[in-house]
């Protein structure tokens, strides 16, 4: 998918596809098949537009007919009312698409998952009824006999086909540019895990807004051309549920998150349904829908992620290259990270937490938390389950807003800032559960974290390569994330956080699920961080590992700090022992 590999192959493939389609079109004389060959690229463009938003970000839109319909009606109404040619009408329709993207996106992006999908469903349907009410039930485009070409009207169907293919090429190039850039990788990061992307410094709202406006423009262009080709527009045909469904079906069928998916889907499904309709529609009305429906069911059962990915995985298996389904590679060479000598903290306070409190409803999750972290230190936060450790991290990096208290980082308060701003200021974070982009390489995964510090693409890759080297994962630079071991995933996540060059790194249970030998490697990597300018705050359950890592502990229990100090002091504290290990252990220990 988002490989940085040469552009030559995809560009050549796009050119061959376009020329091949046109050559095939020239060979076809039947006007019905010519119409079909014009509609396939148009639906593919709508699919690509859907893919730009939903395929890359994972936010499923049931409402792409909004943009398609607005494009179609803009072109039609401008032509009918103002006698304006579609040559201008289509670009103006795209502007309307952009505006609709802004108006729809801004409020709707506050929703997630199913809520987003269903809210999107409502827009085109509301528009459908509004346009019916406005009296645009069925608007024919007037024939312009005096200057047909000026009004985009042609006797020869091949011209329409060429226009449709041209639009498809433009849409493919846009998709390719998005896929191969910071834009596409940021969207993929959002798809994988929106909070993690935000924590890695990606301004998720900004990128989602860009995606929906671009997607709206492309869909509106498809709608505008659709109106020109069919010469009549009805609210049902452009705003209807089936139009939104078409966008989604061709893409999901062909493969989401890749520019080829919508094309494959449209090339297979549109001719299938149109031919069935033409051949059998009169004899058995509805047979088209039944066969179409069954074909969709069958493909989803056989290739749930779409045809493109299934074929790709097969090819990788056949060739023996590491595809997503191929996971049996030799383990990586052990990390070669030098273990630093005794650490020196600068004595300067980097992070100060003052009286931080957070309640959920009536539950007081954190109450008056206060501690300091000196630059160059490794601070361990320990405490039993439910003590509020992860909640504390969520407050520090901006996922949650505190009810009271302050967080001061390098002289600046962090309270009220969005996570991506906090990341930009130099606070990185890793998560308890690693989420990786399975089909992207280690390097591509890490580069997402580097965008905070890099203006140019090359620079970002350079920083990412450095970060991968720092955690000792260089031998696996090009391996796909889906083929990594648990330890390698953890190291990759660490590299992703380091790529943002944080002054402070919050690590949430980086040792979870690692075997004893792997723990050593991870410890070595973490221990090396302060010497290269990264202060660490770490949550960990494994007491023994923590004793060897952190020079200071903050102990939480029931949302309060019950002890602060050096590991030896803290573990000797009776209150801590009881909270952490239970009163039984204390009693046993006292007797023994």
């Amino acid at each position: 998918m988002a490989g940085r590999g040469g552009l030559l192959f995809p560009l050549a493939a796009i050119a061959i596809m376009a020329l091949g389609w046109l050559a095939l079109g020239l060979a076809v004389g039947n006007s019905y098949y010519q119409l079909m060959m014009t509609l396939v690229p148009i639906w593919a463009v709508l699919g690509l537009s859907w893919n730009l938003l939903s395929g890359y970000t994972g936010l499923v839109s049931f409402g792409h007919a909004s943009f398609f319909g607005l494009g179609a009606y803009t072109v039609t109404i401008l032509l009918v009312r103002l006698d304006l040619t579609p040559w201008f009408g289509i670009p103006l329709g795209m502007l309307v698409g952009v505006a609709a993207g802004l108006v729809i996106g801004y409020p709707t992006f506050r929703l997630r998952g199913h809520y987003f999908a269903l809210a999107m469903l409502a827009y085109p349907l509301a528009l459908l009824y509004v346009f019916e009410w406005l009296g645009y039930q069925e608007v024919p485009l007037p024939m312009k006999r005096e200057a047909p070409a000026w009004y985009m009207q042609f006797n020869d169907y091949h011209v329409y086909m060429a226009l449709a293919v041209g639009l498809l090429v433009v849409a493919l190039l846009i998709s390719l540019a998005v896929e191969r850039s910071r834009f596409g990788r940021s969207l993929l990061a959002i798809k994988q895990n929106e909070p993690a992307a935000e924590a890695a410094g990606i301004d998720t709202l900004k990128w989602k807004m860009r995606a929906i406006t671009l997607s709206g423009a492309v869909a509106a262009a498809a709608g505008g051309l659709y109106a020109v080709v069919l010469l009549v527009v009805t609210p049902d045909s452009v705003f209807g549920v089936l139009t939104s469904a078409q966008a989604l079906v061709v893409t999901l069928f062909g493969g989401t998150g890749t520019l080829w998916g919508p094309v494959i889907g449209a090339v297979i499904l549109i001719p299938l349904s149109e031919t069935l309709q033409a051949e059998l529609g009169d004899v058995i009305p509805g047979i088209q829908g039944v066969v179409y429906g069954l074909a969709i069911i069958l493909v989803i059962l056989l290739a749930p992620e779409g045809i493109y990915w299934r074929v790709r995985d097969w090819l990788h298996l056949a060739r023996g290259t590491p595809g997503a389904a191929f996971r049996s590679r030799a383990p990586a060479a052990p990390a070669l990270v030098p273990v630093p000598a005794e650490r020196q903290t600068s004595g300067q306070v980097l992070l100060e937490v003052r009286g931080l409190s957070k309640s959920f409803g009536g539950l007081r999750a954190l109450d008056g938390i206060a501690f300091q972290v000196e630059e160059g230190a490794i601070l361990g936060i320990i405490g039993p389950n439910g003590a509020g450790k992860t909640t504390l991290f969520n407050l520090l990096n901006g996922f949650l807003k505190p009810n009271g208290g302050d967080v001061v980082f390098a002289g600046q308060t962090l309270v009220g800032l969005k996570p991506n701003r906090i990341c930009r200021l130099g606070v990185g974070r890793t998560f308890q559960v690693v989420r990786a982009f399975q089909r992207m390489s280690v390097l591509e995964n890490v580069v997402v974290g580097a965008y905070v510090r890099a203006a140019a693409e090359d620079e970002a890759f350079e920083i990412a390569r450095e970060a991968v080297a720092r955690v000792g994962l260089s031998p696996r630079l090009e391996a796909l994330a889906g083929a990594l071991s648990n330890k390698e995933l953890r190291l990759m996540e660490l590299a992703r956080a380091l790529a943002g060059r944080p002054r402070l790194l919050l690590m949430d249970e980086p040792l979870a699920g690692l075997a004893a030998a792997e723990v050593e490697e991870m410890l070595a990597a973490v221990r090396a961080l302060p010497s290269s300018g990264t202060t660490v705050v770490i949550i960990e359950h494994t007491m023994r590992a923590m004793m060897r890592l952190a020079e200071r502990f903050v102990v939480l229990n029931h949302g309060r700090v019950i002890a602060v100090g050096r590991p030896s002091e803290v573990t000797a504290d009776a209150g801590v022992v009881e909270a952490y290990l239970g009163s039984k252990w204390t009693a046993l220990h006292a007797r023994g």
Partner: protein
Amino acid sequence: MFAETFLEALAAGLFLGCIYGLMCVGLGLIFGVMRVINFAQGDFLMLGMYFTLYVVSVWGLLAFLGPAAAPFVGAVLAGPALFVGGYLLHRLLIARVSGTSVTGSEDEGRSAQLILTLGVALALENGALILFGSTPQSARTTLALRAWEIPLLYDPTAAVFINKASVVACVLSIVIAAALYLLINRSRLGKTLRAAADNPTAAIYMGIDVDRAHRIAFGIGTGVTAVAGGLVATYHPFQPYVGLDYVIIMYAGVVMGGMGSILGAFWGGLTIGLVQQLSTLVLPTQLQNAAIFAVFLLVVLMRPQGLFGRAAERI
């Protein structure tokens, strides 16, 4: 004059709203337990309508009950019939892209579920077109032609007319929704379903067969919605593509009610019925449905947890 129109619209909204409420309860159960967006729900509703029509009018199996009661009994019988249909559909198709078979996969099978149920919807509605034809039909009860006349106290010349069929349908809807509510909240089966919904992984560890729970929830949800469809059929004409109109109303109702709550789904459906009917007082009829979507969007944007729900979507 306005008072009459208002009261009639209010009554129509309440009665229709109860049937919408029942549909939403069916969908809400499926969504609440499985977190699957099922596009075919509207087509189960349509099948419920045709089931009622065939049992009552075409085959005349219930003729002995008389023309007034037979359609209602037929509608209720659509429940068990479509329960079996939903149960089998889940077992054969839906289970492959949902529940434990996709736990931990990239998007938990969400896109696969979407497109699969879209395929099922297409196959069902067009299959229905082949089998039943496109002419609108109805399994009308004779009660649909009768109305109670309720005089207005302050004005002896004015009266509000209330269709008897819609009152019976409304009462049946409330009874069935209440029964389902008790089943979910009081019975052992209900406890199993709620456990499977709340935390599938933990439910598995507690020895609950989560896939079976999903199957049952899917069957019950399908059956309940089919009954609501049958009830609509007792006084309203329909055709094979009718599901599309209703699936949108159902989703709007379920989301407004706060996904996953039976009671909330019912209130959500009721709200939609009221909005739809009352909006005719101030808006042109064509904008009736636009009003629904406007209210739906407002609710979703202001209170994503729904009007009556508390839990927000898990991130």
